[in-house]
C-alpha cells in the first residue's frame, strides 16, 4: 500500500535521524543530571546555530517519518484508505512540523 516515494522518504528520514537520536539521547543523559529548568535549557540552546540546525533537521525528519508511519498504522490497523489516509498523513506531518518549528524557534532564537 506504500507507494515508492513514501517508502523512500520513510527510509531516508530514518537514516537522517540515526545520528540525531543518538545525539538527543546523549544530551538527555547529560542534561538531566541536577534536574531541568527553563533557564537551564535556554542557556544551552539560545543563540546556538548548531542546536538550531540539529533540532531543525530533527523536526523536519521526524515530521516526515511520523506522518508516514502513522499512515501505515492507520491503514493496516485502522482500515483507512484512499483520500482519508492521505489527508491524515498530511495533517499529522504539517501539525508536527508546525509544533516542531515553534519549539525549535522558541528555544534557539535569542
Amino acid at each position: 500500500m506504500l507507494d515508492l516515494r513514501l517508502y523512500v522518504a520513510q527510509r531516508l528520514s530514518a537514516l537522517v535521524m540515526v545520528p540525531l537520536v543518538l545525539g538527543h539521547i546523549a544530551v538527555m543523559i547529560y542534561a538531566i543530571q541536577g534536574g531541568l529548568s527553563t533557564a537551564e535549557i535556554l542557556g544551552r540552546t539560545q543563540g546556538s546555530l548548531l542546536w538550531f540546525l540539529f533540532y531543525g533537521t530533527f523536526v523536519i525528519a521526524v515530521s516526515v517519518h511520523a506522518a508516514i508511519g502513522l499512515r501505515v498504522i492507520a491503514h493496516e490497523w485502522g482500515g483507512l484508505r484512499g483520500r482519508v489516509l492521505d489527508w491524515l498523513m498530511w495533517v499529522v506531518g504539517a501539525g508536527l512540523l508546525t509544533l516542531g518549528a515553534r519549539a525549535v524557534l522558541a528555544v534557539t532564537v535569542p
Partner: protein
Amino acid sequence: MKVPPRSHPLWLAFLLHRLSGLALALFLPVHLWLLSQAVTSPATLDGFLAFAEHPLVKLAEFGLVFLLAVHMGGGLRLLALEFLPWSDRHKTYAAAAIGAALFLSATFFLRAI
C-alpha cells in the same frame, strides 16, 4: 488465508517497533508544544519540569527514552534487513537493539534519580 507467524520472535520485534513508533508519535506533539512555551510562558514549562521531578514521571521518562532507543535499534535492524546482504542473524540484532536501548535508557534513569 495464511495465518501470520505470530509465535516467531521476530513478530515481537515488529510489534515492539510498531508500538514504540506509535507511542513516540503520540508523545511528540506534547513534547514539542511544551518546549514552545519556553519563551512565551516559562512558568508553564517550569511547572512541568517541576512535575517531572516526581519519581513516577522519571520512570515514565525512562520508558520514553527506552522507546526512542528501541525504535532506533529496530529501525536499524530493518534497514540492515532491507539494504544489507545479511540473512540469518536478525534475532541477534533484534536482541541487541533491546539490550542497547535498555543500556541507554538505564544510563539516563540512573542520572535522573
